[in-house]
């Protein structure tokens, strides 16, 4: 359940790609332990928004404060925040030339400066948690899509992040593999992790989310609890979107 502390604060975040304005002033406050699911049509700016939170994209106007640190061009702030914010990508982005174990231990060893033995013990525990300890010595190319995404989640968790960002984590998966990834994410949500999830999985949103945001044309159109959102949406665009996908 959400705590009292505000862990992510964004105020009036605006972002342009050339002439195209992707974000038109996004205000959002996320409490510690809260699970926020972001839905919306493609091109609505939802991925851009969560990529701004660990500064993979640079916002041009407004403020973003993560865990009490404001995102500016200061390199030290960015590296600190990135190591505290885990991210899971649509295309997994595992490192194909490293084994699963090496993928997971790389950042703990070189960024967190853990010893190799400690990092490997943690990695093994995380692989147990996501249900694939037997794959530790394989290369990503030898795993199924669902297994790769679970490794990617374990890789992010190995940095002991305070926040996890998920950018359409199941969109590149075959239908029969979606469930295994969602199960890991549900377990993670129950353990109290702060999560921002961009997804099209409405079932996941209904079951796990504390709050659902609907994004369209670069801003938040509607926000609310899942019950409110799926049973009595107020905005016309939300109704239209829900009628198209449900």
């Amino acid at each position, binding site marked *: 359940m959400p705590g009292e502390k505000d862990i992510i604060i964004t105020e009036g975040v605006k972002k342009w790609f050339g002439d195209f304005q992707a974000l038109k002033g996004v205000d959002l406050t996320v409490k510690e332990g809260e699970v926020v699911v972001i839905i919306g049509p493609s091109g609505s700016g939802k991925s851009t928004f969560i990529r701004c939170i*660990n500064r*993979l994209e640079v916002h041009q106007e407004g403020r973003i404060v993560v865990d009490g640190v404001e995102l500016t061009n200061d390199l030290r702030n960015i*590296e*600190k925040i*990135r*190591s505290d*914010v*885990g*991210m899971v*990508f649509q*295309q997994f*982005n*595992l*490192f*194909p*030339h490293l084994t699963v174990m090496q993928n997971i231990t*790389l*950042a703990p060893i*070189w*960024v967190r*400066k*853990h*010893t190799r033995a400690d990092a490997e013990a943690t990695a093994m525990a995380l692989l147990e948690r996501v249900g694939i300890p037997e794959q530790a010595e394989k*290369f990503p*190319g030898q795993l199924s899509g669902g297994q790769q995404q679970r490794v990617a989640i374990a*890789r*992010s968790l190995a*940095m002991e992040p305070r926040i996890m960002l998920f950018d359409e984590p199941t969109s590149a998966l075959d239908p029969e593999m979606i469930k295994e990834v969602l199960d890991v994410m549900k377990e993670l949500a129950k353990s109290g992790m702060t999560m921002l999830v961009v997804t099209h999985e409405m079932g996941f949103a209904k079951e796990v989310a504390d709050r659902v945001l609907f994004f369209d044309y670069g801003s938040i159109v509607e926000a609310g609890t899942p019950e409110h959102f799926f049973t009595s949406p107020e905005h016309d665009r939300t109704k239209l979107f829900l009628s198209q996908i449900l």
Partner: protein
Amino acid sequence: MSDPILNEVSASEAAPEKPSAGAVRWARENLFSSVLNSILSVLMLALIVFFVKGLLSYVFSDERMWNVIPRNMKLYWTEAYPVAEMTRTWVSLGIVMALTGLSLAVWKVGGSTSPRQFGRTLTSIGIAGVVIAILADASGGIRVGAAVVGAVLIMAGQIVRLTAGPRFKEETIHIRSILFGVLVVIGVIVWILPIESGTKVNLTVQGGVLVVSYILGELIVRFVSGGLARGVLIGLWLLSLPVIYLVIQRAPITGDVPLVSVFLPSVVGFIVVGGALLWWAGSGRAGEAGRLAAGVVVLAALASWLVSMPMLVRFLLLALATFALAAPTFGGTKQAQKNFVVAWSGAVLITAYFMAMMQAETGLEGLQGEFIGGLNLTFLLALAGLAISFPIGIMLALGRTSSMPIFRLLSTGYIETVRGVPLITVLFFANLVINRFLPREVELDDVVKAIVAVALFSAAYLAENVRGGLQSIPKGQYEAAKAMGLSTVQTTVFITLPQALRSVIPAIVGQVISLFKDTSLVAIIGLADFLRVARDIVPNQPASLGSLRESLLFAMVIYWIFTFNVSRASLRLERKLGVGER
């Protein structure tokens, strides 16, 4: 369910024991499938026969002076190297042979093969012998000899195939047996050829060294982990080449080198003071001050080239600057700091060792300056050029893809300038101009200048290959690395560079092969490399006049053997690293 097509397929699969029928069928399906194909096939076959007949008749003609080649082996091998010191080259070769034997065993090159494959290879060689007997316009003795050897090999091949029988899939022939067999054949040939008996003994000893080290390697793998053995071997290979060229083939006199007055204090000072600095800079407590200290060392390293200073100190300062810049990235834990300082001490010792050996006079009579030629020089240029151009090429590629404009501009400028001029001009430039850029007390050998030229030239091409690899890496890889908080240096070293190098192995191997062949251009600045020996020196020996074509053909075969093996090795490497599978 009696499908006629299915039945036919299974029937033909059940009877693979009739190669002759298979061959006829294969020819009908592939060579004579239509009228046009038949005409083309016949035409091409006629052309091939024509060319092969011409080549064989030329090679096996009685007029050819092939005895020139064994007689001038020493010239091909080392050119002007003193005869009294030839033992040194044999020792060098022995080191290479020992390392080759160990490597073959430790890397399990080739593994094993099936008797069927082995039989097929024997048969192919035998058929080549019979073809020579039929087509070559040579004396009767050669033709009969070729026919007999060919027939024996074909029979041997068939016997191996037939005795292997239906179990050929399970049975394997270990690569060791084949290696030893080939060595015995080569040994017999060596003892038949008209060369000095001393050389025969030496070559036999080399073969023995190869065999013994191979067996030793197999024993070592049984007791030591493969990874450790491979690591040690790579280190030995890297060390062996400078040792061979600087120590064994030069017999350096270290009397003139200021070992006690300059080298000892520098080495101790840099290890102690530099080590302490690196320990502190890598501890994490240093923070910004560590980076500042690294900047000061960089400035000092650059300034040292402007004032009078021993070369050793200049190079050690440069090395210290590099290490200091890397310390915050690779330090952190106590263990990492310790490894880093140990690596630094090793770097200091190796640098000092090289500098001492290079500054020493050669101890060989009559060899001031030029100490080597022939195939030895070709290898030295290729290996040293490669070793130096690799790091430079990678730095240039990183510079060109860097987001910092000054690095991008410098790298692009360098690459485009060097790629725009022929190697010959770079060699001339190095030979005539390089000394003007160096402090007055430094006088470089022609060989060293040639190495520098070849390396700088090759680096530009290598840089473009590596850049291609860097640009083929998906954006997601950079994003994933960034999202985990890896720094730019760490992302490059651990994520992008290894993948980039893997994906451009074919291009890099092409560059290595062309570098190996381009070394023949050093003849233009007066060095006697292998091709020059084959073209100018051997055919002008009083007893070998008129042997230009034989000598050049021999050179061609030698170049081909090495480049072909490099390309085979790269194929194996590609397969092992799984290029194109991801």
